[in-house]
């Protein structure tokens, strides 16, 4: 960059590897890249340690076999594929199942303090879709344990952390990504991060919906940055609506209630006190699911002969059953269903204490926010937008996207989870693929030069970013709220063609409004300006989700089409790819699901 050409004011930082996002995947990637002796910059929108990982509750899945020694990577692999309706990238599912145990043990070596088994090893708990107790956990605050462990280890690895800094665009030199252009939230100064390789670890897109367990940060930045840089996105139609979010009072609607409640014996009931999850058990899971209440209870208490209760079916199915109950008039007072853990007092003499020990933050959350004592009363719960299975298409081994030098890991990458993610597979995903992305990004950085920053690109983006200050008109919040309403109402948990087409029209109009929003005040920590700059990313991911969801004319996993009920064998072999084409428009392309190698097919068959 030549100073003479520079009209906008910005600082430049040089790193070998730039990691964008400091949740579990970003921190793990940064630690690994740093261990490979390259210089690493880590950029995050919030303060370090506040990323969304901190909210993960239940645990991280790994076939350690500490509680049930029948567990093995092959069983975890088969469970993950079944849960994803075989839309998963099988190689990613294989690597994930094989490497997760080492990643968990590594966290312990870095200071994490998991709950223990009686013989002093890492304790594991039951979770939906996992055949054996598999989730290493710390009560119901596993995400906090994980992010704090990575943070406290990472700060001693020589990583340059740039907190409260938001990326506006990726920088390219020819086909390659060579950095990112950002602003710091505190002062609003522009920043150029010049890097040989870039890892996206930005998490999800939950803020495209009104009811969500996700925080303000989840605006699909990584998805949109990659898309704009020419990378492929896949599986964008698959959005996980977690079955149990809080529904009352209104201000807490969407806040997560961990699946761990059901893992510890919690049951779902409708207003008639009926355990409706027994009413509809999918064929894929008939062999593995209890057919009476007593067997379900015994499973949660570690009886190896018992099969799991239907409350622990996969999230997509449980969420749909809840929607069915509510729609057919059997819901709870405030439009959810009841989740009852207090009933276990009938079975356990120290039931109330047990609940507080196993689910402390749930106890706390309901007590403080809803004035409900979960050891005495049932909770009201309903589906909440939680996770996007879709994201940047990556190479399974290296996590590199279709754009050279651009890597992605964690929620913003796609492939591992297919059409539906199993609970507990996200935290392990972050570690396994965060580590791989960091390793291969470091290798890429060593093999390539720095490339050149295109000053015109930088100046153009900076100018556009400042335009809202010069405008008068509506502010960004109304546009954001209307987008969230559109996605919630028209592209939510139950979908149909005409509604989604209406959503596309709405998104197009909202995008025009987003391009004209005005902000007040100055560049210092200006929330309105930040929201205005997040809007284009939200528009891009919303459009991608909607277009892919229109295209997939079947119901599979988390994607449920009221106008195309049931799975369609032809669609079982197709992944949908979303990419930006020459004229700047969004294209959805059908591509075959990668072939399943014979040895992996055999494992799936053996675990039917």
């Amino acid at each position, binding site marked *: 960059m030549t100073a003479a050409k520079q009209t906008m004011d910005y600082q430049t930082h040089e790193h070998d590897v730039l990691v964008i996002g400091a949740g579990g995947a970003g921190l793990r990637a940064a630690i690994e890249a740093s261990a490979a002796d390259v210089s690493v910059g880590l950029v995050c929108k919030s303060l370090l340690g506040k990323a969304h990982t901190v909210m993960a509750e239940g645990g991280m899945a790994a076939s350690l076999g500490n509680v049930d020694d029948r567990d093995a990577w092959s069983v975890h692999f088969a469970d993950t594929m079944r849960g994803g309706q075989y839309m998963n990238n099988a190689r990613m599912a294989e690597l994930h199942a094989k490497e997760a145990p080492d990643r968990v043990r590594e966290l312990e*070596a870095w200071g994490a303090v998991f709950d223990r088994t009686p013989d002093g090893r890492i304790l594991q708990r039951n979770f939906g879709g996992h055949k054996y107790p598999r989730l290493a956990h710390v009560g119901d605050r596993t995400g906090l344990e994980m992010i704090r462990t990575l943070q406290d280890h990472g700060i001693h690895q020589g990583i340059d952390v740039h907190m409260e800094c938001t990326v506006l665009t990726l920088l390219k030199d020819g086909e390659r990504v060579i950095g990112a252009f950002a602003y710091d939230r505190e002062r609003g100064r522009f920043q150029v991060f010049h890097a040989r390789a870039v890892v996206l670890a930005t998490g999800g897109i939950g803020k495209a919906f009104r009811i969500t367990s996700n*925080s303000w940060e989840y605006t699909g930045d990584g998805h949109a940055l990659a898309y704009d840089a020419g990378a492929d996105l896949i599986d964008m139609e698959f959005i996980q609506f977690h079955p149990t979010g809080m529904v009352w009072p209104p201000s807490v609607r969407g806040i997560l209630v961990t699946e761990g409640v059901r893992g510890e014996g919690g049951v779902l009931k409708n207003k008639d006190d009926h355990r409706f999850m027994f009413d509809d058990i999918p064929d894929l899971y008939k062999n593995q699911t209890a057919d009476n209440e007593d067997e379900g209870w015994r499973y949660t208490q570690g009886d190896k002969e018992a099969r799991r209760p239907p409350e622990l079916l996969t999230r997509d199915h449980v969420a749909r059953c809840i929607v069915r109950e509510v729609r057919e008039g059997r819901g709870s007072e405030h439009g959810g269903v009841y989740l009852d853990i207090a009933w276990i007092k009938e079975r356990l003499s120290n039931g109330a204490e047990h609940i507080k020990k196993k689910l402390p933050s749930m106890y706390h959350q309901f007590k*403080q926010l809803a004035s409900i004592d979960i050891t005495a009363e049932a909770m009201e719960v309903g589906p909440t937008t939680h996770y996007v299975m879709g994201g940047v298409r990556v190479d399974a081994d290296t996590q590199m996207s279709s754009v050279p030098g651009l890597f992605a890991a964690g929620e913003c990458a796609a492939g591992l989870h297919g059409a539906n993610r199993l609970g507990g597979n996200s935290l392990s995903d972050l570690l396994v693929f965060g580590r791989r992305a960091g390793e291969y990004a470091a290798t890429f950085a060593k093999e390539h030069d720095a490339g050149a920053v295109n000053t015109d690109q930088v100046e153009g983006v900076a100018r556009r970013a400042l335009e809202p200050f010069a405008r008068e008109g509506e502010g960004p919040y109304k546009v954001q709220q209307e987008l969230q309403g559109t996605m919630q109402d028209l592209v939510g948990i139950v979908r149909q063609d005409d509604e989604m087409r209406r959503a596309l029209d709405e998104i197009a109009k909202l995008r025009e409004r987003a391009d004209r929003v005005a902000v007040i005040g100055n560049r210092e920590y200006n929330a309105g300006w930040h929201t205005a700059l997040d809007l284009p990313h939200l528009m891009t991911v919303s459009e991608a989700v909607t277009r892919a969801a229109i295209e997939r004319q079947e119901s599979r996993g988390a994607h449920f089409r009221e106008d195309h009920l049931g799975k369609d064998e032809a669609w079982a072999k197709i992944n949908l790819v979303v990419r930006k084409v020459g004229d700047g428009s969004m294209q959805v392309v059908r591509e075959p699901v990668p072939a399943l190698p014979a040895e992996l097919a055999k494992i799936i068959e053996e675990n039917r």
Partner: protein
Amino acid sequence: MKSATFRIWRGNAEGGEFKDYSTEISEGMVVLDAVLQIQAAEANDLAVRWNCKAGKCGSCSAEVNGNPRLMCMTRMDTVPTDQPITIEPMQTFPSIRDLVTDVSWNFKVKQGIPPFTPRPADAPDGTWRMQQRDVNRVQEFRKCIECFLCQDVCHVLRDHRKHGEFIGPRFLVYAAALEMHPLDVADRVEALAEADGIGYCNITKCCTKVCPEEITITDNALIPLKERVVDRLYDPISKLLRLFR
């Protein structure tokens, strides 16, 4: 629906003033909901940190009617609405803007504490054995969400501004979690006495009172650490023994 008036501090390090905003209050609302409602409606540029809105990330620390609180866990029905509700940033840290403070000092302090250093693995597969009863205490400390409200309320930092000489309750808890970790072999006792300034703490328990995670900071972390320091450095017999070593 009733409405309430919020008296919110607006300004930066150079100065500022309280401004009044009125907003509707609905059932179950928390203070953060009201602040975000005001931000979306009439104060788009209002600076406030928040993330999880569920008491798990520790971002939205502020002083509500003078009490250090997480705004996301402060129910509106616990705050009197017949008079304006004052919301101001944490006073122990420099202002950035409005409700956002510069907490970077905390991150620097943590960096200075020797990290977790485990003993060699117990089993050939590289793993350790620990009993649940031996990790309960450390797990209590590790509930900390780093909201820094304990730092905010600590008079050594808040009133006496001893930021250079005292690491504050948060980092004494952090040090305690490491010192009491069954696997850790590093020694932080002398540093606690000197660089970390544990002697400044005169156990007024203000930190314990404001902790949203209900960690018994003073009794379970600070006092045992003080005892370790005293046993090691001020016990007359061991002092004597050290002379002859």
